């Protein structure tokens, strides 16, 4: 049970960020080591094989499958256009003919004498991988992709929606407790990544999409609003492919929860800087959390500030946040770490910690229900 606590999410002012930018299939890398790249620059490209359209020529012509190849007007590898005749049959000394036409533009890939099926492959689909970050290419994986590196500030969220995007940071909420509401969203926020406080309302989110905000980073979001926004109840936390015209990064959790002071202060100090954000979340083995990367200008590189949380376990004095009811979202400091198992109100036996909460209350909480905060 040595790992019973949830390690805090990473929030750091300066760290080295490396991203592998890999193609889904092998292709061509179009940058080289040392190249400086911007988020929208393509770094690698490939062509996915086109869609396949099977046509049962034997059925259409009314001939046995083994006769199909004789009826083919095109052979394997030939290019054909949509509606072009690809096979023809004659019967009764040529009195009756039937024909079969291509359903798509493409190439004849296969003619089967067993099933009578002809496979037509459509045009290849071009795919590009972009740099995502503002940084430097530090490694090239031939035909597969590259590694892009930058020094920057880094904020890991707990949950997000939407994929990679970038924009200038604009702090909209007056503090980390404020609710980001419809009236806070103005047309000047177009193209920006905006920072909220404890909650973003559904109305604010929709207006943000309408004015063209690129992304929102906020403490909390209500599940009911998430369901209305997505149009379905999210069953499993695997996100990132939603095409909603905005990327949302929630830093604390569901409900109204103040953004951690440290996170809010860091983002506020970076107002006006470029932020590269990604809402993709996968809470399974191989966990992926949403993120905010704020690349630092050149010359500002140096030692990694790291986080206290990542190098230390729980100890007396550690700042923590409670991540489950009845103290959900409350922040405090560890005052004792008794090692024997203790009985909770639910009668479960668990390892606990004693904590002094921000409001002066003292509580005993299972270690599994807290996460470390960074100082």
């Amino acid at each position, binding site marked *: 049970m040595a*790992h*019973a606590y*949830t390690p805090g999410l990473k929030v750091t002012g300066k760290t080295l960020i490396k991203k592998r930018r890999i193609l889904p*299939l*092998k292709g061509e890398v179009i940058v080289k080591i040392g190249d400086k790249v911007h988020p929208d620059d393509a770094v690698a490209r490939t062509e996915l*094989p086109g*869609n*396949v*359209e*099977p046509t049962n020529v034997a059925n259409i012509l009314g001939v046995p*499958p083994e006769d199909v190849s004789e009826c083919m007007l095109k052979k394997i590898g030939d290019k054909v256009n949509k509606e072009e005749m690809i096979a023809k049959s004659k019967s009764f000394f040529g009195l009756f003919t039937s024909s079969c036409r291509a359903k798509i533009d493409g190439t004849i*890939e*296969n003619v*089967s004498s*067993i*099933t*009578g*099926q002809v*496979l037509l*492959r459509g045009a290849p689909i071009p795919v590009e991988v972009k740099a995502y970050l503002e940084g430097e290419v530090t490694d090239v994986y031939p035909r597969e992709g590259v590694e892009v590196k930058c020094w920057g500030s880094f904020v890991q969220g*707990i*949950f997000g929606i939407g994929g990679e995007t970038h924009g200038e940071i604009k702090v909209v909420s007056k503090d980390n407790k404020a609710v980001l509401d419809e009236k806070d969203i103005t047309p000047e926020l177009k193209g920006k990544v905006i920072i909220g406080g404890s909650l973003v309302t559904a109305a604010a989110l929709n207006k943000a999409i309408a004015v063209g905000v690129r992304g929102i980073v906020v403490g909390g979001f*209500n*599940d*009911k609003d*998430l*369901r209305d926004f997505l149009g*379905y*109840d*999210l*069953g*499993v*936390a695997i996100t990132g492919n939603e095409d909603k015209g905005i990327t949302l990064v929630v830093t604390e*959790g*569901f*409900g109204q929860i103040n953004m951690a002071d440290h996170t809010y202060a860091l983002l506020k100090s970076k107002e006006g800087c470029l932020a590269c954000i990604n809402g993709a*979340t996968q*809470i*399974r*083995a*191989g966990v992926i959390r949403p993120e905010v990367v704020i690349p630092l200008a050149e010359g500002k590189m140096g030692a990694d500030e790291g986080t206290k949380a990542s190098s230390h376990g729980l100890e007396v004095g550690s700042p923590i946040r409670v*991540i*489950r*009811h*009845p103290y*959900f979202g409350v922040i405090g400091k560890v005052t004792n770490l008794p090692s024997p198992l203790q009985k*909770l*109100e*639910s*009668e*479960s*036996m*668990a390892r606990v910690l004693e904590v002094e909460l921000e409001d002066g209350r003292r509580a005993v*909480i*299972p270690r*599994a*229900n807290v*996460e470390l905060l960074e100082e």
Partner: protein
Amino acid sequence: MKGLKPEDIKVILATDCGSTTTKAILIEYRDGEYRLIVRGEAPTTVEAPFEDVTMGVLNAIAEVEELSGRKILDENNKILSPAKNNIGTDIYISTSSAGGGLQMMVAGVVRSMTAESAERAALGAGAIVMDVIASNDKRLPHQQIERIRHLRPDMILLSGGIDGGTTTHVVELAELIAAADPKPRLGTGYHLPVIYAGNINAREAVIETLQKKVALDVVENIRPVLERENLLPAREKIHDLFMEHVMAQAPGYSHLMSWTDTPIMPTPGAVGLIIKTIADIEGIEAVGVDIGGATTDVFSVFQGVFNRTVSANLGMSYSVSNVFAETGLPNVMRWVPFEMDERDLRNRVKNKMIRPTTIPQSLNELVFEQAIAKEALRLAFIQHKSFATVLKGVQQQRTIADAFEQTAGGQTLVNMMTLNMLIGSGGVLSHAPRRQQAALMLIDAFLPEGVTRLAVDSIFMMPQLGVLSTIHDKAATEVFNKDCLIHLGTCIAPVGELKNTKDLMSYRFEMPDGSVIEDKLGVGEVKLVKLGFDEKSSLPAKAKAILNPAKNLDVGRGKGNKVETEISGGVVGIILDGRGRPFQLPEDNSTRVSKLKEWMGALDVYDKSGLEKLA
């Protein structure tokens, strides 16, 4: 195995590499029986920064060494074997579900026939079935190709046609797979394994179509004739390929494979094996359920036929929100005897999903979590019932008597009345603070009928015992009965029309100490009769029972028929469930709440004063 005879095996070390934890158990032969000695666990080390599964295995073994005092590893971290005195182990075996387990896609010609047989073979082997492609699944061929290409499974099982039947459709499926040119999930340097287990006459054409694009293996047809399935060759090939291709790609596994005395088996496959072994040895019908964070597995053996299903998105943490989405708020809240705010509840569920390792601290959180578990189990069992059926598409011989009881083909094999044993596993059941809670979750979710024994797997060692059963079924079953299972007791639930009935049955129990308990079970009543364990054998104590149901009710021998049987005890005892089958909660809210409290009180499920405060 190193040529050891089963009787020479006295010390057994077994591990299960799960996606988060690697669990090791040590079994020894002492005083004429095999018993669990200790268990150890350590975080699994498949992912960065370690990327070597053996590190987690060694850590778990080190904990076993520390707790047992037995030296198992030498200074080079090599497992010492065979055992001598307090050093080494005779055999080492392992299962694995790390890295997402085994993910498969299956294909067959007719969805309810060969495709379903293929699905059964894959599930039985311990795979997660990502999709089932069938010639009649109503998708257009290009959509099927897109799907195959998009999913990236670990392997594909292709079946179709009976031996000597038409070849066209199954070759068409092979053509679809070839056109999709699928890539394996892990690694890029090898071809995707595809197993062909279809019509023997189509083999040549399938080989010709696929051999250049995939790594093709051909095994016997899984449906050689319509009336019979032959799943074993396909299952065994799946296990071989799992080792050769999938495991070999996972970090550190090639090393681990060289340590074990039998092939590493996918965890759910091994759980299925132990349940089947127990059912066969004891001649009983059994259902096992493992409710995890992401998925719920249900295993059953009815009429000697083993079935397994995986409900991929029903679980208690990663998938908790999906349980909520699928069953709906009212179905969860019907099990909760107090009010909760909907908006707050929704946020709580989502917060559990994004922070899956948290545990319920307060009583209301626990009651709510167990309510969700009941629904997850119920939904998973519905899926299982619809899958565990007699073979579809088979012509059935009917007698004149059947004419009055016409049933559609593909009737479920699951029969709650003939079910003898229901075994629960997974954190929410195994770690419930009171065992009565586990018993009530199982009863409410599965609604057992007649006489049914209930048990939970204490520390989830069914996987290790499953592999062990392949080489030493005596050791596996002894440990299973004495150390793995926590016997909860027996549920007795009369089935039938409750109208105009005051008492469902009268009962008489002759207890092990000679005392007699006689009473009646009223409609809507739940009662508990304490019956624990036999001190000598430490197995559940037995009571001689006479159950006399009312004339329109059945407890196992037909309506109104008396049942004389032996009833097993356990940590909870004998639960007499008079709530009726089919079971329905009162519609009126205040009656529902008061009934829930009455039942919870009768079984002492929760702290009474705590529950009162929540109302």
